[in-house]
C-alpha cells in the first residue's frame, strides 16, 4: 500500500540580497521604496535584487507502507526542506503530496519545551504538540520517564536540567509516539554514545513493527542498519533512489573524491620554489567489494613526485597525517639520500584496517641535509574514510583515530559443569 506519494514537488525561496539581517524592518522597506521612486538608478536598486533559490526541484517518489527510507545528501541538498514539507510545516511551491496515515515528525528534540515548566508538565506539553492525546500520554507516561531516566527530576523545571537530560526527555516522548509514519531529522547528532544506542534501538523497533520511517542522517552506518531503501538528494533534486547499500555507495563515491589526485604538467606553473617543484600527488585506493569509496578496509597507496632542481642534493621527505580536527596521527620520514637533478618520487602504503573512519589530510615536507626544510605543502592531499562494520548491532561513532585489526580473542577456558 502506498502511504506517501509525491508528485513534482518543488520549493522556492526568495533570497533577499537587501540585507543580511533576518527580518527587515518596516522603515527600510518604506525608505527604500521612496528612494527608488525618486532616483531610479541609485544604489538602492542593487539592494533590492532578489534571487530565486530552489531548495527542491521536481521531486517525485512513492513510499510504501513499512518502507524504511534513509535520506542522504550534502548539507543544503534539500533533505530538511523535504521533511518540512512532509510534516506540513511549509508548503511546496508546486506539486502535491498525498499522505495516508498519521504522521509524527521529529525535526528537533524537545520541540516546544518550556524552560520554566517542570519535566512532568513538559511531557504533556510536548506530547500534545507532537500530536498525542492526553490519555495516550498518560498511558505511556511511566515508560517515557523510565526511558529518559529522569524520575528524580520530574518536578524540576527543565531549565535546570543538564543538556543530556533535556535531550533524553525530548527523545523519550517522541519515541513513545505511535504514528503510522515517523519522520526523523538528524536527531542522533546529539546525546552520548549510550543514549544514541538506545535511540537507534528504539527506531529499530519502530521500523520492525511495520511502520513507515523516513530518516535523515549523516550517520551512514545508522542509515545502512535501519533503512531498506534510500533517497539521494543533490542540489534540491532527487537524483537516485533504491537499495540502501547501493545509494550509500554512490553517495560516498561522490563525496569522498575529495582531493585524491593533484598534478601539474608545466614546471613553471607548479607550486614550489627554486629548489623544488611539485609534479604530482596521488592517492590510489585499492577498493574492496567493487565499491567506489574508501572505507576502513581499503588499503591505499600514496605517491609524491617532485622536480628536483638542485644538483647533488641530500633529500628526504617528511609526511604528516592529520585528522579532521587537526590532530597529528603520525609523522613519517624517508631515508635521506643524494639525488641528481630530475624527478624524485616518494611512495607510501597505508594498509587497510589501520585508520579509523573520518576525514584526513596529509602535509608533506621536502628536507635537505636532514635539517633544512626546503619545501612544505600543507593539505597536499585529503581524503575521507567511511565506516564499515560486519555483524555488529551498534551504530554509534567508533572511537579512536586508528582501528587496527589486532588479534584480540575471547574463548572459554573453563566451564562449570552442570550435573
Amino acid at each position, binding site marked *: 500500500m502506498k502511504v506517501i506519494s509525491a508528485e513534482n514537488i518543488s520549493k522556492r525561496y526568495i533570497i533577499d540580497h537587501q540585507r543580511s539581517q533576518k527580518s527587515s*524592518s518596516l522603515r527600510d522597506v518604506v525608505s527604500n521604496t521612496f528612494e527608488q521612486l525618486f532616483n531610479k538608478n541609485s544604489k538602492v536598486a542593487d539592494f533590492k535584487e532578489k534571487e530565486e533559490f530552489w531548495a527542491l526541484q521536481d521531486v517525485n517518489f512513492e513510499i510504501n507502507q513499512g518502507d524504511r527510507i534513509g535520506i542522504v545528501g550534502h548539507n543544503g541538498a534539500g533533505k530538511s526542506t523535504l521533511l518540512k514539507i512532509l510534516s506540513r510545516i511549509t508548503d511546496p511551491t508546486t506539486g*502535491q503530496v498525498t499522505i495516508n496515515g498519521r504522521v509524527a515528525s521529529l525535526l528537533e528534540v524537545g520541540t516546544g519545551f518550556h524552560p520554566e*515548566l517542570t519535566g512532568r508538565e513538559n511531557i504533556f506539553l510536548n506530547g500534545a504538540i507532537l500530536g498525542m492525546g492526553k490519555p495516550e500520554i498518560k498511558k505511556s507516561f511511566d515508560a517515557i520517564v523510565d526511558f529518559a531516566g529522569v524520575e528524580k527530576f520530574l518536578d524540576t523545571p527543565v531549565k535546570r536540567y543538564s543538556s543530556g537530560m533535556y535531550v533524553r526527555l525530548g527523545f523519550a516522548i517522541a519515541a513513545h509516539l505511535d504514528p503510522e509514519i515517523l519522520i526523523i531529522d538528524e536527531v542522533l547528532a546529539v546525546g552520548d554514545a549510550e543514549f544514541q544506542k538506545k535511540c537507534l534501538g528504539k527506531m529499530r523497533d519502530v521500523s520492525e513493527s511495520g511502520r513507515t520511517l523516513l530518516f535523515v542522517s549523516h550517520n551512514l552506518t545508522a542509515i545502512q542498519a535501519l533503512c531498506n531503501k534510500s533517497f539521494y538528494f543533490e542540489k534540491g533534486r532527487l537524483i537516485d533512489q533504491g537499495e540502501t547499500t547501493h545509494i550509500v555507495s554512490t553517495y560516498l563515491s561522490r563525496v569522498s573524491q575529495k582531493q585524491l589526485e593533484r598534478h601539474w604538467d608545466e614546471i613553471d606553473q607548479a607550486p614550489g620554489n627554486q629548489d623544488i617543484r611539485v609534479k604530482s600527488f596521488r592517492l590510489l585506493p585499492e577498493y574492496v567489494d567493487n565499491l567506489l569509496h574508501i572505507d576502513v578496509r581499503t588499503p591505499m597507496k600514496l605517491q609524491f613526485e617532485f622536480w628536483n632542481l638542485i644538483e647533488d642534493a641530500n633529500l628526504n621527505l617528511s609526511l604528516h597525517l592529520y585528522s579532521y580536527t587537526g590532530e597529528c596521527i603520525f609523522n613519517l620520514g624517508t631515508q635521506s639520500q643524494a639525488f641528481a637533478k630530475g624527478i624524485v618520487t616518494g611512495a607510501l602504503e597505508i594498509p587497510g584496517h589501520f585508520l579509523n573512519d573520518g576525514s584526513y589530510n596529509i602535509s608533506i615536507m621536502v628536507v635537505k641535509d636532514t635539517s633544512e626544510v626546503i619545501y612544505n605543502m600543507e593539505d597536499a592531499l585529503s581524503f575521507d574514510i567511511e565506516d564499515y562494520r560486519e555483524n555488529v548491532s551498534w551504530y554509534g561513532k567508533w572511537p579512536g583515530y586508528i582501528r587496527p585489526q589486532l588479534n584480540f580473542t575471547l574463548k572459554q577456558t573453563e566451564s562449570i559443569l552442570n550435573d
Partner: protein
Amino acid sequence: MAKFIANILFIKYLKKANNYKLIAVSYLQSITMSYKTTIKAGGSEKDYWKDLWINRQLLWILSKRDISVRYKQTLLGIGWSVIRPLMTMLVMAFVFSFVAKLKGDPGIPYPLMILGGLTIWSFFSNSFSQISNSVVINSNLVSKVYFPRLLMPLSAFSVGFIDFLISLSLYIGLSFYYSYPPSVNIIFLPLFVGLTFICSLGFGLFFAVINVRFRDIGQLIPFLVQVGMYMCPIAYSSRLVEGKWFYKYYLLNPVVGIIDGFKWCLLGEKAYFDPSSLYSTIIVSIVVLFMSLMYFRKKENTFVDHI
C-alpha cells in the same frame, strides 16, 4: 468508501435529530479512520477547521502553559494580577480627580468607574498585544512542528482572561466597599466580554501576521495600547465627548462601545451608555475579524519562511 457514505448518512440522520454532540463524535471518528492528508501549494483548505477541532486539546495545553509560566519565579505570584489593576486605578483616580479635576458620571464613585473601565480595557489590550505577539513568541514551534497556526493567537487569550476575572472580582469586592453593588444589567456582561474577544482577535490577528515579517510591530503595540487608553472612556465618561463635533468619529472606535457598555453593566443606568455606539462596535469588530482571518489564513503557510 461504503463506510464513509454510511457515516455521512448517519450524520445527516443525526442532524435531523438535532443531536449536535453525537454529530461531533461521529465526525471525529470519520476523520480518525482515514487520516488522509494532501499537501500542496496554498495549503489544504477544506481540512483547516477539521484540524483546528482535532487539535483543540493543544489549544487548551498552550493556554495552560502560558498561564502557569506567567508568574514563575516571582515572589508574589498571582498577587500581581490584583496589585497591578489596583495600583493603576489608584494612580489614575488620584491624577484625574485631584490633578486634572475630571469628573465621572454623577452619582458614581470615581474609582469604581475607573476600575470598571480599566478591567475591560486591560482585557482588550492584553489580549490584543498577546495575540499580536503570539506567532513570533512561538516561533520555535512554527518552524518545527505542524498544527493549525490559529491556535497560537487563540491560546493568547488565556492569560488576559484570567487577569480579567481577577480584576472583575476585585471590582465586585470594591463595589461593596463603596456600597455601590453591580446593577442587574450585569446579565449583559457576557455580551460585552464576547465583543471584546471578537474585537481583540480581529485587530490582533492582523498585527500578528505583519509581526512575523516586520518586528516593528513589537515596538508599535505598547504605543498603540497607550494611546488607545486615552482615546477610550476609562478615566473619563463619554458624556464629556457627547455633543462635540468629533463625537461621531469618537464612536467609530469599536472599543468605546464595549467599555461604555461594560461600565453600564456594572454601574447601572447612571453610567453613560449610548446603545447606538454598539453598531459601530459590532460592524467594525466583525468586519475586521473576518478580514484578518482571511489575511491570516492566506499568510500562515509562509510564516515559517519569514520567522
